[in-house]
């Protein structure tokens, strides 16, 4: 265990069910301020769900999610919308508003939350677009962007209000190696330049290990390991080794729980 002193997000005893299935069972996660924290784990373990819980879009069945001491699940609608001004979220699909240009997408949070004059909005938008290298694409529509560009525009929109916490859902998935490298650098650079806290959800081990200060590995409804990248590399538990080395099968099963394969096949024969 590393000593984490300045915690911005403190998740305590989080339990969350989807129907009968427990996605999280009594999970504790601490996110240090100003650092890059990665949440890793195989698909379907609930990484996106965790971000939605932090953002207050889902309510846990029990447990607390404290953002600077405020318990997000217990906030009313209005307080929740206010606290979200402090959070930026980069969705897996980018989620740009398809009826607005790149410029208007980035300007949107500014127009909603501030009463800045138009020239100021313009300067801020161009600064954010410059930061992601897409100032020249301001007049394009989202449908005219490549996947990597769309994600960078979404990033510019997410940082428009200079949030304290920036959450990235699978930022590297489906990117070609160059776009991926660009994004990795961008996330690292933005984190250093603005000092916000970053939470990256990912299953891309190499890229995430490269930039994260602290890593949580989720599986089976709980945290199976945490620590700095070096600590995790040195970890000996077979579950963690399987995940980090990318082995297809091991303690974390490749198969979704099912009946015995052979008897399942026989069943088809008998019935047919």
């Amino acid at each position: 265990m590393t000593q984490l002193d300045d915690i911005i997000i403190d998740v305590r005893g989080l339990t969350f069910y989807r129907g009968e299935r427990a996605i999280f069972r009594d999970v504790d996660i601490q996110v240090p301020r100003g650092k890059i924290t990665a949440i890793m784990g195989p698909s379907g373990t609930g990484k996106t769900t965790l971000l939605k819980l932090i953002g207050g879009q889902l309510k846990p069945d029990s447990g607390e999610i404290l953002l600077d001491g405020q318990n997000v699940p217990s906030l009313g609608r209005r307080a929740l919308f206010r606290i979200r001004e402090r959070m930026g979220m980069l969705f897996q699909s980018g989620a740009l508003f398809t009826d607005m240009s790149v410029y208007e997408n980035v300007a949107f949070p500014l127009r909603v939350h501030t009463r800045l004059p138009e020239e100021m909005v313009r300067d801020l938008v161009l600064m954010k677009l410059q930061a992601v290298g897409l100032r020249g694409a301001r007049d394009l529509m989202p449908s005219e962007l490549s996947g990597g560009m769309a994600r960078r525009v979404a990033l510019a929109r997410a940082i428009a209000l200079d949030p304290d916490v920036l959450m990235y859902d699978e930022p590297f998935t489906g990117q070609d190696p160059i776009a991926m490298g660009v994004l990795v650098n961008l996330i690292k650079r933005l984190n250093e330049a603005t000092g916000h806290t970053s939470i990256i959800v990912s299953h891309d081990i190499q890229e995430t290990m490269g930039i994260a200060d602290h890593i949580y590995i989720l599986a089976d409804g709980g945290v199976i390991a945490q620590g700095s990248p070096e600590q995790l590399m040195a970890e000996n538990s077979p579950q963690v080794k399987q995940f980090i080395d990318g082995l297809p099968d091991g303690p974390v099963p490749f198969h979704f729980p099912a009946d015995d394969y052979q008897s399942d096949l026989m069943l088809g024969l008998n019935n047919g």
Partner: protein
Amino acid sequence: MVELIAATGRAGLNRVAAFGRAAIFLMQSLVARPAPLQMLPLLLRQIYVVGVQSLIIIIVSGLFIGMVLGLQGYTILVAYGSEQAVGQMVALSLVRELAPVVTALLFAGRAGSALTAEIGLMKATEQLASLEMIGVDPLRRIVAPRFWAGFLCLPILSAVFALVGVYGGALVGVEWLGIYEGSFWANMQNSVDFFDDVLNGCIKAVVFGFVVTWIAVYQGYDSVPTSEGISQATTRTVVYASLAVLGLDFVLTALMFGDL
């Protein structure tokens, strides 16, 4: 047998629960009425999409239905020598029934399905979720202007339908079949009552506008965010909205004209 009863009960409960969710959803959208200044451009844009773009289909359908009514009315009434009453028949059937009902059905197919698909797709592409994360209530920003636009436009479209329909009836009756123009219009004027007919027709159109748009935006918002889910939601919008319109039309007609 017990299972059948249990399943029926469960389905019934699910329906009631869905209806409750839809009611809460509507309340939240309506209470979440945004500041007029922000609302106006969004509302105008939706009125354009939902209303103005539905005009063509409404005008064309109204014209044809009015012409058919004129033709049918003439062939029936001429046997009794009372073909001057065609104007009255066309106007009454349009104003009381056909304009609100057919407009609502066309509206459900033309605009309602589009609303559902649009909102469903916004949900599937996480646009609604990202609005929430930006701190904007999607009920305010997306649902409310669409709801109000549909609610306002359907009565107007219905009025347009009735006007064009009457014109279509006159086209066939007067221009083509040669009914005396004076008695065609005079009969119509004498028999159509503002309160009994026009106002009741308007009430129907308002009720249908409310119900059809409600169903459309709710189905979009509640859809399963996959291609299949959206296609099912779109189908449900058209089916539920059409059934609701026809059912409500009977109830409203019974209330309005039942004691004649």
